[in-house]
């Protein structure tokens, strides 16, 4: 279960009992992840505020520190010194515990993400399922917040967020399922390793250089899956246009309405950390994770540490890029209504995700099965691996494109029958 970890190689304690080394290792990694998470969150808030300001002809925070980069710290200090209010009618313990229950599972998500070449805290065999399971726990925290506050807006927000989480979790997991089929396993650590090589063909062409660009997003299955996954990630992370659980113009702040001071900040941290974790997850599963030009070359040249560093940089670059995409979307579009949100999940994303799984199965069949498994109907044995990938790409591209067009067409709003105002 425990993979060799880089830090454990650095930290060699002679004659220490094995469990102590293990405990220290885990404590250090947990510390690095959590402190890194906190710093990431502060940077995220700053980036978001500056980027949105840029889109709105404003400057954004620019007073605390150079370019306002320390603004989040100032905000944090303010949060710490705020009065901690518990409404009199609230269920005290449920109200207090809710932010923690919301944050803890998100911190747990960080543990299984592969941060770079060889930089994995825990390599779970069922990593993908673990992510899905753990991310669903935070819904309990939101529900506790909504119920424990005894506030109508909070309750409405909690109900909305749960409905949304459940609806979007299904296409999210099914979108991941396609990639699980492609990789033949649920280990997140293995996914980037399988995305080496050149676009679409990966490392199937002999003699082609390993550019680290065999990302799944370049295959038809990965493209559709990636788009579905990213939309669902927006919904899971409660980003606009799916931020109805805390729609400030409608239900004040949703489940967070009655929270103040640090408890509010914890919800805030949880949300940003979740967004970042989902961005990293999208990068790992669809954008090659830590793969990128140069990583394989450095590793071949014997510079393992440099390769790890470069791979970490690649991953962070991709994750921050996706996060900035989330920010730009937030600044550009309004939010959907509850019913529109639900029908989007069930009528658009779910059928497409299901078709994508079928495409993925076809892909696996075309690239990995022999003619015998096809019942000698398809003479695929004579083809080279890259030719088989080409055929599979063609077939799945046709299926996915057709399905997308079909789903968009059948869901087109019926010809408007408005109340005609007689002249």
């Amino acid at each position: 279960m425990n993979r060799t970890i880089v830090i454990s190689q650095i930290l060699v304690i002679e004659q220490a009992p094995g469990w102590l080394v293990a405990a220290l290792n885990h404590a250090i990694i947990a510390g690095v992840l959590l402190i890194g998470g906190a710093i990431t969150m502060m940077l995220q808030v700053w980036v978001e505020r500056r980027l949105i300001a840029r889109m709105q002809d404003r400057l954004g925070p620019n007073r605390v520190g150079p370019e306002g980069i320390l603004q989040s710290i100032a905000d944090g200090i303010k949060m710490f010194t705020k009065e901690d209010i518990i409404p009199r009618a609230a269920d005290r313990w449920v109200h207090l515990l809710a932010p923690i229950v919301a944050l803890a599972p998100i911190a747990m998500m960080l543990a299984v993400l592969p941060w770079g070449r060889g930089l994995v805290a825990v390599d779970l065999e069922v990593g993908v399922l673990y992510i899905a399971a753990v991310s669903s726990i935070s819904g309990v925290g939101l529900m506790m917040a909504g119920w424990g506050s005894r506030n109508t807006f909070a309750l409405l927000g909690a109900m909305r967020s749960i409905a949304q989480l459940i609806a979007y979790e299904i296409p999210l997991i099914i979108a991941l399922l396609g990639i699980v089929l492609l990789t033949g396993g649920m280990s997140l650590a293995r996914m980037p390793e399988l995305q080496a090589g050149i676009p679409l063909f990966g490392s199937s062409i002999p003699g082609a250089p390993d550019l680290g660009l065999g990302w799944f997003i370049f295959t038809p299955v990965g493209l559709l899956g990636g788009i579905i996954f990213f939309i669902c990630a927006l919904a899971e992370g409660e980003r606009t246009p799916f931020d109805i659980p805390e729609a400030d113009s409608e239900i004040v702040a949703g489940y967070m309405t009655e929270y103040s001071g640090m408890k509010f900040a914890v919800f805030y941290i949880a949300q940003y950390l979740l967004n970042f974790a989902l961005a990293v997850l999208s990068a790992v599963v669809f954008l090659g994770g830590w793969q990128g030009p140069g990583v394989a070359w450095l590793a071949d040249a014997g510079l393992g540490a440099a390769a790890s560093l470069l791979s970490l940089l690649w991953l962070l670059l991709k994750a921050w890029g996706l996060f900035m995409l989330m920010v730009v979307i937030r600044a550009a579009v309004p939010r959907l209504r509850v019913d529109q949100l639900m029908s989007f999940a069930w009528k658009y994303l779910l059928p497409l995700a299901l078709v994508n799984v079928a495409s993925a199965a076809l892909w696996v069949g075309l690239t990995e099965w022999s003619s015998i498994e096809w019942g000698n109907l398809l003479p695929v044995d004579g083809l080279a691996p890259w030719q088989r990938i080409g055929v599979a790409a063609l077939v799945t591209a046709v299926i996915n494109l057709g399905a997308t067009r079909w789903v968009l067409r059948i869901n087109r709003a019926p010809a408007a029958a408005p109340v005609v105002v007689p002249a």
Partner: protein
Amino acid sequence: MVTVIFIAIASLIIASAVLVVISREIVRAALWLIATFFAVGALYLLLEAEFIGVAQVLVYVGAVSILILFAIMLTRQHERHEPAWRAGPWWIALAGVIGLAAVLITTIGAVPWRLTDDDLPVSRAPQLGTALMREYLLPFQLAAIVLLVALIGAVVIAMEERRRRTPTLADDIAAQRGAADRAEDGTP
């Protein structure tokens, strides 16, 4: 070390389960139930059944308990003044249950279990998947049908909502116009 962890998890399971059945407030009971589910999931991890452990968290904590909380909140007003948790002569039930526990525990102690020396297979999730697709294909398909039926059933039972829509102003006007048109048609 493992013993300590096991005892911690076991006491968490039992304590939270007891709180589930004796909490007066139904939401508190539901939250303790979630804690129980979570601890049971941890126990599965300790037993090296990662897949089941994660599935436990996914299904029970992520789905079932959230459904429960949802249902409680929809039927919430009643719960504010819920009658006492116990119905009728609860001590008889308690005595019976303690008796059952005593019987079970003595039986467990009396059976000579044939413990295995086999090592655990290294990759368990693929093994499980293969088994589901080969030996247990029929039950697997049946489970899928059960889930589908449950899905449809739950939707049908909870549906009803659609029919009781509050009409908008435009609906009213359209209905009035429709009625007026019909009246005109009826009386030439």
